[in-house]
């Protein structure tokens, strides 16, 4: 069953959430579980088009977080919440486990401390192993590993489906999703706040700022000067699926103060990933890859697993973490402004998203927003499976027998079928361009990058688009 959308009374939403990334979508979903009307405002053409689409997609246990921080608490809780939510919605997850590898004496000596830290974070399953055990688990690792720490519950997840599931769920619970609504100005009134956006004004009693890389800008529009976001670029290589047998677990470096360092990880789509780099930029839109980044990754990769570098590269990309000048997540309500900031969700927000949303709900209640849980919530959405661990439509004889469109493979490298492309174009939050379609189906994401299927996928998307009669402003693919 679906819930009646909660209409804003007199054109005023109870809450407006700015930012359609994982964090904003999780918050909108959480709040729509209560008796309030919610709007989710996203500047871009699609949800999940910011940092949430370009990360390393690891579902962290939080074993290495700084104990006692809000981040540590929310990552640990987020791990469990997202694992359960993934089961309910079909978000692809694989509980692969991780091995943190020590390459020198200093790193080896750091392992016991890391194990204690994990325990301080409430994570009890780490084990220190010797070099033989490391090579038993990862036979293709470069020579020279001295030992390691296993993290059996560290997992891989599909970040795209996570964001889509949360946003779809929010929408089905009644959230009004407003795409192409970049917030450019704020007018605080006594009863409500007017958000000036690129697509007109939106009014709400309460405002939650989950704008990721733009959160400090929004915060300043509310008159604060609390923090500055530094875009910290992370570049990554995705290697061909044929490399996947080499990497069955996440291979972690011993963490440093700069961040989590370069890792090798299987992906939920059956590839192997190497990255990310960490480089502070000034341009918050610069998600380009760089020669230096590539050289750095290739050098690291050579040191970690030389055989991997002989494999073909399928893709490369870069994401920007929202690093801030503050050691923890910065989540604070300003009750007199009916405003709440969610800032500095840098390298763990995918995992922590749902826990952040819970925390936000508590803070809003404490700040005076009345939030009563609804009894009539719709079931969470069942998301299409784009992971390799479970059956994909092209493998499902019964499904194909019912609908031959699932037997018509369009993207050969990723085995994406016509049925899936059709579905993605007509989903509650439909794919509106090729990028959106890639994130919903994996089409064109494979080793040929469109050599065979690019033209056919483009044609299919447009055919469905034309039938939808949706706004053709967004008709920009491959013009």
């Amino acid at each position, binding site marked *: 069953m679906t819930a009646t959308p909660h209409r804003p009374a007199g054109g005023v939403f109870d809450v407006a959430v700015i930012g359609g990334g994982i964090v904003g979508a999780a918050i909108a979903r959480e709040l729509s579980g209560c008796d309030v009307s919610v709007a989710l405002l996203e500047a871009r053409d699609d949800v999940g088009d910011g940092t949430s689409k370009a990360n390393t997609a690891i579902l962290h246990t939080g074993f290495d977080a700084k104990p006692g921080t809000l981040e540590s608490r929310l990552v640990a809780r987020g791990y469990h919440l997202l694992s359960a939510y993934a089961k309910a919605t079909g978000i692809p997850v694989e509980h692969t486990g991780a091995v943190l590898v020590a390459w020198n004496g200093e790193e080896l000596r750091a392992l016991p401390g890391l194990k204690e830290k994990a325990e301080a974070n409430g994570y009890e399953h780490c084990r220190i192993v010797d070099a033989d055990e490391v090579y038993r688990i990862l036979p293709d690792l470069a020579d020279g590993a001295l030992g390691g720490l296993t993290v059996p519950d560290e997992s891989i997840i599909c970040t795209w489906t996570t964001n889509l599931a949360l946003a779809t769920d929010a929408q089905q619970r009644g959230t009004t999703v407003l795409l192409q609504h970049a917030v450019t100005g704020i007018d605080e009134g006594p009863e409500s706040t007017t958000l000036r956006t690129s697509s007109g004004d939106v009014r709400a009693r309460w405002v939650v700022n989950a704008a990721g890389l733009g959160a400090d800008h929004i915060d300043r529009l509310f008159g604060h000067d609390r923090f500055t976001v530094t875009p910290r670029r992370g570049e990554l290589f995705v290697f061909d699926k044929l490399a996947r047998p080499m990497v069955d677990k996440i291979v972690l470096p011993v963490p440093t103060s700069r961040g989590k360092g370069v890792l090798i990880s299987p992906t939920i789509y059956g590839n192997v990933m190497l990255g990310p780099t960490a480089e502070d930029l000034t341009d918050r839109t610069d998600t380009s890859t760089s020669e230096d980044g590539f050289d750095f990754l290739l050098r690291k990769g050579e040191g970690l697993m030389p055989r991997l570098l002989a494999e073909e590269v399928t893709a490369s*990309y870069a994401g920007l973490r929202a690093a801030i000048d503050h050691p923890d997540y910065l989540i604070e309500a300003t009750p007199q402004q009916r405003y709440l900031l969610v800032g500095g969700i840098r390298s763990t927000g995918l995992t922590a998203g749902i826990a952040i949303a819970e925390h936000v709900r508590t803070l809003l209640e404490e700040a005076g927003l009345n939030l009563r849980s609804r009894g009539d919530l719709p079931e969470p959405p069942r998301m299409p499976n784009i992971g390799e661990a479970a059956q994909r439509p092209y493998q499902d004889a019964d499904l194909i027998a019912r609908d*031959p469109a699932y037997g018509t493979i369009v993207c050969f490298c990723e085995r994406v079928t016509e049925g899936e492309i059709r579905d993605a174009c007509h989903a509650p939050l439909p794919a509106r361009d090729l990028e959106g379609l890639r994130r919903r189906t994996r089409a064109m994401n494979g080793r040929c990058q469109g050599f065979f299927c690019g033209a056919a996928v483009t044609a299919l998307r447009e055919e469905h688009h034309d039938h939808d009669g949706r706004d053709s402003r967004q008709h920009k693919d491959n013009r």
Partner: protein
Amino acid sequence: MTQQPSLITPDVLIIGAGPAGLTAAAELASRHGGRILAVDREPAAGGIPRHSDHTGYGLRDLHRVMSGPAYARHLVRRATAAGAEIRTHTMVTGWSDDHTVDVTGPEGRYRIRPQAIVLATGARERPRTARRVPGDRPHGVYTTGQLQNLVHLHHRPVGKRAVIVGGELVSWSAAVTLREAGCTPALMISRYPKAESYGVFNLAGRAVLRVPVATRSRVTRIIGKGRCQAVEIEHLDTGRRRTVACDTVVFTGDWIPDHELARTAGIALDPGTLGPLTDTALRTSRPGVYAAGNMLHPVDTADVAALDGRHVAHQVISYLQGMREHAEGVRLLADAPFRWVAPQILRPQDPAPPRGRLLLWSDQFVRFPKVAVRQDGRVIARRSLSWPAAPGRVFRVPSSVLEGVSPSGGPVHIGLERV
């Protein structure tokens, strides 16, 4: 409950209905009879020539010259008329055992267990990502395959001003397609001191195409958000960099076989071609599994792929007739400037390779090549050839240079005599 997938058992399964697969199918059906099944994942059979809408096909196999699509249609008609079955929209997605494959098509998910298999899955161009070119990720960046698909099969516009990366035959083919689509090929970029295929290019005549070529150059960055705006290129000798404005970039050549099925089967690959390691009978390392076409030599012209298909058909027929023993062979290795040689194994009693030619890929331009064949430290053959060895196209050497090879000796090296 999911049912056990249904099974079909043709005599021969040919995976890939391009020139190689279709020619093998036609030959097998007309000479052997039995049930010959060719499958292709595309909506229509014909392989790459289907969307390569210019002339230049069919010379060596059909002794006439026709357009790609006409050639593809001809091969399809011939295979069908000979009695082979062709299933399109039918993709082999993996192996369920050593001689059984899993298949997906609109009719369903099923298995095929033939007596013999021919892998003819062709080759593709490495896209920008596989070439590790950094920068922005705008629209308008293609391979020739995608470009020709867009323009010839889907009649879509491309941009106005293009840079072509590569100077192979296929790069000129991209230039022709761009012109037809109303896009000016503004610059061709080649790593080599001369555009590889200049001398042999007669498709539309390079005089007509008149594309300026930046030699000894490489692309170092793609620039543009949304739509491509420019590429940055570097001169390899001076290190000087400049940007070239363009809204379209086509990455051409730099081939890799579609070897996923071979690799997931555990079939031995040649480190040079990255296709299956084969002998002159085109056997792979798995008994009953053969390979033909561009997956063995990425990349040669379609007629050569087709003649591979004819050659492999005869070998498969011998296999079906029970001839399964073969002697140990010696390994053929390519020495610099050659990157690879195909096929790679020579066994006594085996037939000469297709067309009596060894195929090699050169990383250097050599106007008057003198081929030297060495075994166990001794030169066993020298041959001066009257055609150049040039990067970007296959260099053919008559297999008669192997006549002096000792079947019990060590690996055979094929290289050049230095003068």
